[in-house]
């Protein structure tokens, strides 16, 4: 009855915290621990033995799921599934709806999406762009305790901090544009998110233009071509860098036009 994958799992200590406090304590400083949200990225890594962790932290029952509102402030727990976001206003909702398929959206979590990246075959972490556009902050645990910082800063250290929740102020207007994809895969080759805040400030960000989500500040004044100054697209299995450079300004222009048209 024993198989390779059964034996592998038994070599890993599995931690199943039942609260945020337990999750934070179990995570500690993040040494030698694999965090599993929905499993859509890491379970294949385990199956194919790309990772063989000493400990695995299952977040499913840690009480980190759910979307809450306090005035215009939206807070999304790290274990909230992508499926729970699809009805939110742009850019978050349309970005979530564009991810994978129903089964993937029902299993994959916001925390896992934030910690994804550097997928060498295809871009990962679609929500990073949309959450950068709305100026999200991330509450996380790790060395030094619980901190809250802008998503840009969190992305730099996402492998060493446990995401607990992400928060942002609902923008006055939002927009999302993605490259259409062939039916044979459900990855996003390139997408642009935009948001206009109450004070009129516009923020733009892309997924698929770099190894993880990146802001496009040069284009926020309205010059879509200027977005190319902010990114260095790469080749992967979905699209060439050349193609991404050709299409990025098109998507940026669509998002800017939509933001302009929105009341």
């Amino acid at each position: 009855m024993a198989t390779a994958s059964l034996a592998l799992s038994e070599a890993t200590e599995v931690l199943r915290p039942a609260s945020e406090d337990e999750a934070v304590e179990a995570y500690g400083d993040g040494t030698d621990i694999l965090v599993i949200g929905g499993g859509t990225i890491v379970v294949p890594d385990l199956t194919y033995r790309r990772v063989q962790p000493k400990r695995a932290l299952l977040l499913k029952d840690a009480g980190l799921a759910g979307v809450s509102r306090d005035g215009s402030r939206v807070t999304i727990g790290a274990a909230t599934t992508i499926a729970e976001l699809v009805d939110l206003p742009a850019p978050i909702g349309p970005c979530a709806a564009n991810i994978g398929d129903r089964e993937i959206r029902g299993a994959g979590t916001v925390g896992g999406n934030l910690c994804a990246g550097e997928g060498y075959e295809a871009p990962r972490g679609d929500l990073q762009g949309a959450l950068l556009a709305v100026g999200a902050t991330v509450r996380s645990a790790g060395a030094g305790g619980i901190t809250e910082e802008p998503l840009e800063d969190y992305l730099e250290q996402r492998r060493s901090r446990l995401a607990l929740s992400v928060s942002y102020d609902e923008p006055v207007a939002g927009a999302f544009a993605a490259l259409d994809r062939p039916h044979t895969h459900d990855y996003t080759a390139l997408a642009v998110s935009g948001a206009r805040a109450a004070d009129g400030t516009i923020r733009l960000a892309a997924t698929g233009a770099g190894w993880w989500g990146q802001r496009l500040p040069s284009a926020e004044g309205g010059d879509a071509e200027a977005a190319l100054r902010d990114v260095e697209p790469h080749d992967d299995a979905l699209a060439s860098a050349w193609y991404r450079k050709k299409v990025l300004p098109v998507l940026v222009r669509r998002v800017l036009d939509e933001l302009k048209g929105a009341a």
Partner: protein
Amino acid sequence: MNLTVNGATHEIESGLLTPLLDVLREELGITGPKAGCHQGGCGACTVIVDGEPRRSCLMPVAHADGAEITTVEGLGAPEDLSPIQQAFVHHYAAQCGFCTSGMMLAAQAFIDRGGTDDKEAIQDALAGHVCRCTGYSKIVEAVAAAARGDEFDLSETAVGKYTTMTTGGAE
């Protein structure tokens, strides 16, 4: 931990991180869910977990602790096919058959949540399910027929009396 599969409850010995797919196939011998890509990209391993379609290759079995799971074996029996299975037979929606169980379970969950014969809605419900025989048109027709509640005389289907079908819905 316990798994309830097609109404029968099993005590599971596999490690908690074992993909549900491997537990079903290798520990319980339930081979309807297929190990196509084993990384979430093909849909062949799809099962219904507490009413929702899920990729069993991506789900640590710990996440299914106490859940009700339906595999294709739980839809119907060879002598007593369920409506979705009858629709797949009648509309010739299975060719090599490898994607069929995942397709039917995604379709069953779609119909159970009120899905209609709208073609776009069916395509959305089956997104991520890859048929390498490229039999998508017949599959969508079968799901539309089952969603409408069409009834079939499979003794006539078997001798090939029906060769033209309509999709209905959004076209």
